[in-house]
């Protein structure tokens, strides 16, 4: 019962069409949430361009090809998919996040930037409860995904993580073959129908297929760092999650590999919601639709459209940080 809390009704492609109406199953709730979400946003930062932006994006993504989650309509694509309310994180007695409230938009790239140690990784880990694995970490507040607080006692983090995947800073492929790496998630979920096909699809989406086709039995450790990182991305999207969290996915890579990862992220945003932590301001400006700026002490100082954040930030501190005077 608990296990099923976040199990997608339309997990397998065959069900996709029937799942259409039920997959989200909370249109009413999402609609009801709209005002609150807006309130959250405006409390953090004014977002004057919201309306026009919404119009833009629905035009640029007229028909999403999303097979799994079903009801992906133009109207929905501006919806928040996951939101944090008054989130505090403590490591022992040390407070790493302060009162963070944010709403992440569906099928957009949201960049999280900020100086080192300001709690970006900590914040990202809150979304799929990876902080649970850190003994000393304690999370206060709510993170709402599909109308449920994921920190409720009856939520199974394992089921949650199947819907919210993660790519880490250092490429960390398993010491197994390329195929086994990508198939790992599907196998752990006992979902091995059309395994070959789905592995191939994931590798293609991660822009790695052309380089490894025919070598799927080779050890993943024989790949280059950039290829490994794309493999880790393929591994994460193979289980077809709703959200992909990426913690500085390109920081260990050279410029060419980095630009490949960036292209990949932009591609992914057509079907997935991507939240990416980055140290690289230009990268954030290039690839993200929305940007959240954290500053030292774990505070979310500003959150809004990327263009606006980079061109006309509200806060002087953010301006100083972005222009390199601080941080």
């Amino acid at each position: 019962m608990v296990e099923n809390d976040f199990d997608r009704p339309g997990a397998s492609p065959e069900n996709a069409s029937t799942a259409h109406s039920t997959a989200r199953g909370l249109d009413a709730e999402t609609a009801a949430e709209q005002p609150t979400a807006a309130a959250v946003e405006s409390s953090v930062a004014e977002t004057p361009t919201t309306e026009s932006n919404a119009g833009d994006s629905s035009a640029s993504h007229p028909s999403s090809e999303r097979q799994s989650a079903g009801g992906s309509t133009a109207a929905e694509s501006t919806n928040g998919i996951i939101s944090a309310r008054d989130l505090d994180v403590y490591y022992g007695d040390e407070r790493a996040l302060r009162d963070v409230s944010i709403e992440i938009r569906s099928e957009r790239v949201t960049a999280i930037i900020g100086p080192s140690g300001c709690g970006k990784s900590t914040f990202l880990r809150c979304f799929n409860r990876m902080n649970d694995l850190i003994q000393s970490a304690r999370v206060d507040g709510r993170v709402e995904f599909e109308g449920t607080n994921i920190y409720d006692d009856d939520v199974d983090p394992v089921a949650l993580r199947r819907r919210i995947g993660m790519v880490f800073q250092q490429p960390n492929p398993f010491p197994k073959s390329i195929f086994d790496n990508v198939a790992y998630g599907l196998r752990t979920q006992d979902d091995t129908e059309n395994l070959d096909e789905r592995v191939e699809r994931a590798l293609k989406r991660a822009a790695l297929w052309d380089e490894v086709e025919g070598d799927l039995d080779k050890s993943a450790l024989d790949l280059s760092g950039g290829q490994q990182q794309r493999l880790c991305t393929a591994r994460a999207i193979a289980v077809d999650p709703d959200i992909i969290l990426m913690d500085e996915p390109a920081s260990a890579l050279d410029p060419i590999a980095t630009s490949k990862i960036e292209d990949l992220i932009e591609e992914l945003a057509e079907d997935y919601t991507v939240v990416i932590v980055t140290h690289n301001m230009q990268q954030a400006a290039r690839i993200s639709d929305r940007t959240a700026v954290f500053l030292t002490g774990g505070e979310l100082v500003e959150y809004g459209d990327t263009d606006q954040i980079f061109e006309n930030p509200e806060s002087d501190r953010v301006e100083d940080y972005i222009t390199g005077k601080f941080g």
Partner: protein
Amino acid sequence: MAQEQSAGSGQGFAGDSGVSRIRGRVFEWLTLGATVFGLVMVTALLAYVFNDAIRPFSADPLWHLVYATTVVLPALVLLATYYTSDEPAGEVAIASTGIPIVGLVAGSGLVVLFIELLTPADWFGLVVGLVCAAAVVRLHQLTRPNAAVERLFVIVLAPLLAITGIPAMNIQRTFSSPLTTTEIVTIDAATPSLLPSVGDVLRPLLTAVPGWVLLVAAVTLPVATLFGRQVAARRGDGRGVREVVVGSVGLVAVGSLVAPLFGLAPQHWVLLATTAVLPTGVYLEGVVRRRTGVLGVAFPIVLGAGLVLGTALTNAFGLAGPSSWIGWDFLTSPTSITPEDAGIYPPLVGSVLMLVVIITLVFPIGVGAAIYLEEYAPKTGARGRLVELIEINIGNLAGVPSVVYGLLGLGLFVKGIGLDSGIVIVGGLTVGLLILPIVIISAQEAVRAVPDSLRRASYGMGATKWQTTRNVVLPRALPGILTGTILALGRAIGETAPLLMIGAAASVRLAPNGFFDKFSAMPRQIFAWSSEFDPDFRFGVLAAGVVTLLLVLLLMNGTAILIRNRYQRSD
């Protein structure tokens, strides 16, 4: 030196740097001295023992000369060329010589087991039983995929029932209070056998089948399948399983028809071929395919040819070899009142059987405990402190003197459960307890060495703790776990004090035929020889026993190193 110091004295910390440099030198020399001293002492002792056991100087000097020119010289020359010009070939040379030797010894161990303990039909029944059990578990998984607790029962019970059935029980035992020795309860119950084991069912059907056929089916076939999978995985194209299986089974089967011509029983050939010939073949296949160090294969060939040539020459010229205490007769006969006839066979078998008990006891419990402590146990709070206390105590237990474990075994298994003193299973359980903490600690070490990033990757994919442990942590930690376990087993095989405490016999004429037989183990026998009156026992036979023990140890440790190297390279 002086220049350095005068140059440095201008600076604030110059005075100190001179002193600390001298201190560093002294420390370096002291540690070097200690190391050299230790090495020299051990080497001297070993040389002494080996000299006593082998007595190389009793041989004709010409005998030495012949073997030096046919075997030692070519081997050294080859090794020198490998390590100066083609290092991978050196590795290949060592491995392609070591694998068949280790395989032969392991195979001899199996041969001994099949002589003393098992019939091929027993083993066949066991394997078929396990296969049936695996099928039942699989079936359960398919029909009721969500019944986890039920599956646990199936996983435990299916193999148990397949192997033992429900045997007839006949318990007659009186339990008395340890303090007052008054009787508490007397159980006298007998039940008939309710369910025959798979082996019992098969046995009457198998009487007409020759033993070697059963062994090919129940030993060679599974081993060849494993190797085939490995070869297929290494080639990277997933092919070759069938080739390897058909090839190996064919080779072994044909060999069993030829083996009797060379005085080798077909059953024994099957075992030796499976443990020595197959792994060597698979290794060589890999070498040839990788095309690195192929020249190393020459080494075992040159060595073998040299031995044959040397033997032919010494026979032709009637050159006498050394009259060693250790030799084939020593390994295959029981001890005797005359030192010349004394041998170590029954205690050797005893040690091997004891090792079997130890492995089945210690490996699952030790690895299980290590995984629990590292992956599952709470690390914080009151329960975390309890776990910490337990871990500290495991460390302490690893340091408890072995004689105390002997006492524990005596109290627990002999006086407590009421097993006979001095039988194999009591010895195995006692020594097993002794090395259990060592196995736990080394397995913990191996599990801890698995990078956290892999665990995070697995959890991040939505794997459960068990899936992460099973699919990521265990495979990665296994080489380390195996190495640690084998080293601990090496310690187990040399333990003497616990055997004295649980009453293992000083010497037995007959090797034990089962786990409930009286036995003696190698160190116990060696200890017994050390108090014989005849100096030939105390020096010659004893030295031969020690050398046997050391060789077994060396082989076990060599295997551990092979495993470690193999997996390190594949990372």
